[in-house]
């Protein structure tokens, strides 16, 4: 009986790995998840969830235009991602409309433009894979781009790790000790746009914001140390990707949705049972610790 279940588990894990596309999907999704997970610590602490949503939706027309012109899709996505943020800032400054309204207004406008462009530009753009991701069908050129962008974001975040933490925590202090806060603001935005670009391959434009906030939010419930939060966030993101891809392989489910659902379940688990901040406070349950 034990041997049987062992064999089942063994094949459950090993069978998918015999397929080349599955190995690639697992590796790429884990890489993308790690990048998004790293960044999500900053975004959740900065309160940029809505901004993440805005940027990730706004890259849509950029991706379509880039595909149509034969440019790297990341370039188009990046331009439109940063452009949307600039436009949000401009409208907010020049009108009396509140920021969350402006954000909602701009990103849906960009997203709609993307959808209209797809319907107009007759090419081999697969709307489904842009919207919902296609980690199983990722092409070689996409792999190279993804690796390059991921490394770039990770290097930037590692170099400016502490400055960005200070920027999220107390920008005024950062400014008084001579740190360039405007640079950090745009650095974080740039990383956000780039991470959205790589993330959308895994889970698609609609769900990429989950990759950018859920791991960070989960880690936030589990620790009081920023460095630990970052590490936990990255681990949760990678584990969710692996679980999501396996589940989608075995049960024939949408991959992007499965990855995000895995993240959501881990968040719910932390929400209920996190040692200090969970509803049931596991630690208290076992040790009587308050």
């Amino acid at each position, binding site marked *: 009986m034990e041997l049987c279940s062992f064999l089942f588990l063994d094949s459950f894990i090993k069978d998918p790995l015999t397929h080349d596309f599955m190995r690639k999907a697992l590796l790429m999704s884990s890489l993308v998840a790690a990048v998004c997970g790293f960044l999500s610590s900053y975004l959740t602490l900065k309160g940029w969830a809505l901004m993440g949503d805005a940027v990730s939706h706004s890259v849509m027309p950029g991706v379509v235009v880039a595909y149509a012109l034969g440019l790297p899709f990341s370039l188009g996505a990046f331009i439109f991602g940063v452009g949307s943020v600039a436009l949000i800032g401009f409208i907010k400054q020049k009108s009396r409309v509140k920021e969350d309204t402006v954000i909602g207004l701009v990103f849906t406008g960009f997203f709609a433009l993307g959808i209209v462009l797809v319907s107009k530009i007759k090419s081999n753009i697969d709307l489904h894979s842009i919207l919902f991701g296609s980690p199983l069908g990722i092409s070689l050129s996409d792999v190279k781009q993804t690796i390059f962008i991921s490394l770039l974001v990770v290097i930037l975040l590692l170099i*400016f790790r*502490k400055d960005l933490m200070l920027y999220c925590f107390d920008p005024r202090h950062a*400014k008084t000790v001579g740190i360039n806060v405007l640079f950090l603001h745009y650095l974080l935005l740039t990383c956000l746009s780039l991470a959205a670009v790589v993330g959308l391959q895994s889970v698609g434009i609609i769900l990429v914001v989950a990759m950018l906030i859920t791991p960070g939010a989960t880690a936030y419930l589990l620790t009081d140390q920023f460095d630990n939060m970052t590490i936990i966030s990255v681990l949760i993101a990678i584990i969710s990707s692996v679980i999501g891809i396996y589940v989608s392989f075995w049960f024939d489910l949408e991959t992007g949705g499965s990855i995000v659902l895995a993240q959501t379940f881990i968040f719910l688990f932390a929400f209920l049972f996190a040692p200090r901040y969970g509803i049931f406070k596991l630690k208290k349950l076992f040790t009587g610790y308050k």
Partner: protein
Amino acid sequence: METTNYQNFRIYAENICVDYNGKVALYDANLRLQPGQICGLVGMNGAGKTTFFNALTGFVNISKGKIRINGESVRSAQKDQTIAYVPQNEGIDSQFPINVWDVVMMGRYGSMNIFRCPRASDIQAVKDAIERVDLTDHLSTPIGNLSGGQRKRTFLARAIAQRASILLLDEPFSGVDIRTEKLISELFIQFKNEGKTILLSTHDMIHVREICDLVLLINKTVVAYGETSEVFTPENITTTFGGISPDFLFGPES
């Protein structure tokens, strides 16, 4: 033509104006502070106290006027980390996952390399600063687990670790326990003796009278400025607080 020697002043602000999208927050404000002076910035909510701080730290740009910090521009003051800012407790995210040690270390960031790796001297400065505010037992306590007073002391320690010659404190006495209040008052006297210049905003008139050499009363602009005993007249206070009687503000004993 009159020329002013800015070098004599730690803080020199001349006719500064600040507006947010055309809405005036502060106009024609002047301030001159020398080393070793403690000045209280008194005014209602929305009178421009925080705006004044923001202008001095360069967090907002002034639309008119001139600011010199130690005779130099605000930008150079930022580079030299001349000014330390101690925020209100409400002004910080107390749930941020960071402990006392790391907050105080942030005071040293300006003088570290790009990776912000602490050197032995930085570690020593942080240790000393934490000791001065009596938080040595809480080095690794997350700020979310501190009391209001302990949190205030943490940010004071950050300012000490920064070794700034000017300290700006936003409501240093609000929401703190008696012990912290006493410790802060003692520290102010030490800072004064060290030649530091202190500008603090407060609602609390009793503290102003006890601690401050100078008072700046503001209500969008300077209502009165000078030595505490001279400036604290019922007329000035009434103007500052928009007609509210000073008896109410000073409490029954005055």
